[in-house]
């Protein structure tokens, strides 16, 4: 295995940029949450590449924490989406800018 470290980091950067574009463009809340997942996964990939280049386990440990955080974030985020869908009957994020409690 003789892959330059830059290529791995570059893959993470590309995936992160795609996720950022999706987050900025989409107005559907489900797609926005999906884009956040793409960005989190790219950050984890960068940790794994750095850990593999050093030959140390710290990168993999950090990925496990990112995984736990992503799971907690998705459960709360999807609960919020369900709540929003019940109130506004839509997944359009622009409808949620007038929250009267």
């Amino acid at each position: 295995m003789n892959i330059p470290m830059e290529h791995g980091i570059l893959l993470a950067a590309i995936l992160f940029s795609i996720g950022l574009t999706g987050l900025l463009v989409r107005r559907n809340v489900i797609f926005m949450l999906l884009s956040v997942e793409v960005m989190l996964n790219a950050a984890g990939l960068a940790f794994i590449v750095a850990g593999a280049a050093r030959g140390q386990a710290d990168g993999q440990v950090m990925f496990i924490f990112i995984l736990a955080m992503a799971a907690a974030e998705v459960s709360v985020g999807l609960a919020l989406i369900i709540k929003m869908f019940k109130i506004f009957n839509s997944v359009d994020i622009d409808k949620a800018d007038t929250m009267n409690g």
Partner: protein
Amino acid sequence: MNIAFYIASVLAIISTLLAITGKNAVHALLYFITSLLSVSVVFFVLGAAFIAALEVMIYAGAIMVLFVFVMMMMNMGADGVKKERALTTPSMWIGPSIISLLLFLEMFYILTNQTSQSITMLEVQPDAVGKLLFSKYIIVVELAAFLLTAGIIGAYHLAQKEKTIHHRFLQNENDNL
């Protein structure tokens, strides 16, 4: 092994692009699962077999099932695609794409202008990960446990049904308030 890394990278990029640009939510989700599986191949090639297995099990297995479940609760079929077309028009893509492309080009410039160190990827055994997780990072494990507990309670509280008052007398009193 090198060629597997590059093929999986191209697959991951293409399927992520399709997931982000898709109109049908379920199709986009399936493309994202493909992307996660290709990233897991990348992890395997980089010598992190344990993390590759975790990615398939937790990300592609558990988290994506949650997404599918919520999508089924919302009943977005062929009607959802029409609504999605109205929500995101093609002209919306221009501005944000330029912004993130500029940021990516900046990162590309920084990465390629470094003194290139030819680093060979070293394999890390799962037992090293476990030993480190429960010795040096034990406090972070505890914090992750707090976070997950808070996540469970928060999700339960948010998804709870609002209390309805069935008694006629109390109903009127509630209306007057």
